[in-house]
């Protein structure tokens, strides 16, 4: 059973990685890149509650939840890619052959239920918090903003070294070209929030030093949710009379789910990994279908539940009233096709799939920090000084697992306004130096350019009169794609900048 489980874990991790890498330009849409994100029951339930909508794309998650009732937490043990990563990391960071004399602490086990309660209470009051904790969103986010960029940096370095060797240059280029067509991006992705997101991820892995699968045991609200549903599962761990009370199964259990009476296991905590079957030397443990009579208490007292719910409410109130303006800064330029802001914040699970696919083309999207308020942490925003929205691209809407960004036909997206460009006349070269430039106008992708020139005489700084092309924005044409700001040659803040002013949002298709 252990071998089968490991194979399953590796297959699903590879599938996760494949789908992650597939979410790039040119995106053919043959594979469902948001499969794992849509399969998370926690994300599905919390997002549907918060947004008060049934999201039909997430029905797979409900199927998994239903299957948990007879099968237990198979998702945690056999599928969850974060669980697999933690298993691997635990193997690396934990010293082997250490035999714990006593059972590891159960002290933190109730936290995950408290977190689940807080997340669901917040969702009921329309505050989306699940994104921080959902393991799939968490891993996708970390992959996008940290692990993949770091991998790309190293891979590009190797290729650059190979390409600099004259003799193998052609072969090196062929390999590089293949890599760029399959898994490497054309430009190095870089993200503002990478360090913070990495710190959280590293912290989760480091907790493995305290206990194996510390995250899954004690903190993961998805695990908590599945645990509640697996209470009544129909698989049974059966220990025969031949048990020698050696305790290997208890110390071998990564979830600490086996009680001091080794024949009893906690069905809420057990993730069906089968480790206890494999470590049992006399082979006294077996697995059968049948009503499980194990211990199945949910480790959450009524007091704790109330505390957690209150914490969820308090957090909700704090976040909703934080004096960080959502709109006044104009910096929260949303991807084209985003639904209205309050619904957007309810639906977006901060998985960074849109950011990931955008990085392979125009590269305007970044996880925000406070640009859209405390409630909008890590939601995607366009940062036009870094990248721009490609005129011929509508991929972000195609990979959004919750349809916070709607999948628009290209013709519609090309006309949709994300924001509006403004000249900063104290920085734009023609305006402050009375010298022609045109880089913004040259790059404007609209068939009828939104940047036009007022051609007239002006006195330059040296006192001479000359004819200068003064650029201006035609508001009725500009879509706020931001290529003008990206390409502006002024060092520092650009001479033209985009804000979210006059942005158009799309109603969610139900």
């Amino acid at each position, binding site marked *: 059973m252990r071998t089968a489980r490991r194979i399953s874990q590796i297959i699903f991790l590879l599938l996760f990685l494949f789908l992650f890498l597939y979410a790039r330009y040119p995106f053919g849409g043959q594979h469902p890149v948001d499969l794992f994100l849509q399969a998370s029951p926690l994300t599905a339930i919390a997002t549907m509650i918060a947004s008060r909508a049934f999201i039909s794309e997430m029905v797979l998650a409900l199927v998994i939840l239903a299957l948990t009732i007879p099968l237990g937490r198979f998702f945690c043990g056999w599928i969850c890619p974060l669980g697999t990563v933690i298993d691997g990391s635990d193997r690396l960071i934990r010293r082997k052959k250490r035999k714990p004399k006593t059972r590891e602490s159960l002290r933190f086990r109730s936290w995950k239920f408290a977190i689940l309660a807080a997340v669901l209470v917040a969702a009921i009051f329309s505050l989306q918090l699940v994104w921080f904790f959902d393991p799939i969103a968490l891993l996708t986010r970390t992959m996008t903003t940290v692990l993949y960029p770091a991998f790309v940096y190293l891979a590009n370095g190797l290729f*650059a070294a190979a390409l*600099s060797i004259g003799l193998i240059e052609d072969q090196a280029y062929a390999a590089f070209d293949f890599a760029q067509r399959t898994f490497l991006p054309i430009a190095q992705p870089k993200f503002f929030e990478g360090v913070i997101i990495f710190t959280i991820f590293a912290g989760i892995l480091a907790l493995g030093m305290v206990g194996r699968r510390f995250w899954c045991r004690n903190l993961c609200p998805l695990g908590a949710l599945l645990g509640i549903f697996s209470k009544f599962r129909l698989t049974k761990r059966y220990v025969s009379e031949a048990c020698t009370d050696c305790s290997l199964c208890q110390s071998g259990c990564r979830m600490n789910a086996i009680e001091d009476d080794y024949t009893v296991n906690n069905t809420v905590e057990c993730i069906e990994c089968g480790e206890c079957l494999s470590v049992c030397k006399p082979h006294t443990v077996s697995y059968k279908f049948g009503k499980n009579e194990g211990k199945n208490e949910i480790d959450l007292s009524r007091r704790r539940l109330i505390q957690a719910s209150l914490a969820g409410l308090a957090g909700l109130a704090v976040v909703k009233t934080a004096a960080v303006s959502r709109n006044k800064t104009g910096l929260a330029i949303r991807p084209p096709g985003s639904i209205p802001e309050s619904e957007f914040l309810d639906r977006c699970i901060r998985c960074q799939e849109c950011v990931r696919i955008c990085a*392979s083309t125009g590269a305007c999207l970044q996880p925000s920090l406070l640009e859209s308020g405390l409630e909008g942490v890590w939601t995607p925003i366009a940062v036009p000084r870094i990248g721009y929205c490609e005129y*011929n691209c509508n991929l972000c809407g195609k990979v959004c697992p919750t349809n916070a960004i709607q999948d628009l036909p290209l013709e519609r997206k090309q006309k949709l306004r994300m924001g509006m460009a403004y000249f900063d006349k104290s920085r734009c070269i023609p305006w402050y130096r009375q010298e022609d430039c045109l880089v913004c106008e*040259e790059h404007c*992708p609209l*068939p*009828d350019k939104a940047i036009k020139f007022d051609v007239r005489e002006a006195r330059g700084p040296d006192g001479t009169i000359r004819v200068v092309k003064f650029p201006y924005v035609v508001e009725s044409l500009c879509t706020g794609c931001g290529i003008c700001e990206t390409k*502006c*040659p002024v060092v520092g803040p650009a001479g033209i900048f985009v804000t979210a002013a006059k942005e158009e949002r799309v109603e969610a298709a139900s």
Partner: protein
Amino acid sequence: MEDISRRQFIIKSAVAGAALASFSAFPDITSAAASDTELAVVKNGTAAAMVRKAVEELGDMARFVKKGQKVLLKPNIGWDRLPEQAANTNPEAVAEVVKMCLEVGASRVRVLDRTCNQPQRCYTRSGIEKAAKEAGAEVRHIIESRFQTVQIPNGQIVKSWPFYKDVLESDVFINMPIAKDHSISRITLGFKNIMGVLGGDRGDLHNKFMTKIVDVNMAIKPSLTIIDAYRILLKNGPSGGNLADVAETKTIIAGTDRVAADAYAATLFDVDAKDIEYLKIAADRGLGVMDLAKVKMKEISLSA
């Protein structure tokens, strides 16, 4: 600098050789290769047929490419646009040049451009990647680490700039722009197309553009300039996007004199070369001849 000297030495030797040949001192040279035509303009054919005819009029590709030489062909692939939108060089014309180079024994023809939109998008939508590859070219993406700074001692403002290594290392450099409207240079042609092999922040070149574009062109001399005017973009250039701004002029201009080639292309826009400041500057600096009356030119129409 060393590379440039070597390149120019080779080019100059080749040109000198061709010039010597034209005195018919070497009877074994084919008559076509002995042409001294500086500018060939072909009209009213398919893009491929016009390109072939134009180069033949200059004395065939053998005049420019010797057996075993490495060719760098630089079309405009700058934009994520379709061929009919006339923002990038015509893919069939590019493919034909690739074929002609290989026919006379080029060891390789490399095609590249530093694009304005995402490179894969541009290479794909322009149709150039597919067409050039099928014709036998090596189509390559720009790798940022492969730019080398070139000194431009005679540059007035720009004294040095990074150029793409593949261009510097090529034996033959063929510049192949498409003729388009452009708000600063008025029309973007051969001189402006050189921007596609430049590194650094090219936006910096756009103020005092007329002087700076000639400066960077002093560092590199194309053996051959082929201007694609099969379709030209009359408005909203250089990126275009509106088919109403495209005119089907069905013209290919090929020349050894890059100033003359640009000057001729300007006439398609009803613009006098004298009104294009960078051409005046370039002619003054001796990079070529702007007055078309002084150029050995052939004009041919394919549909008789």
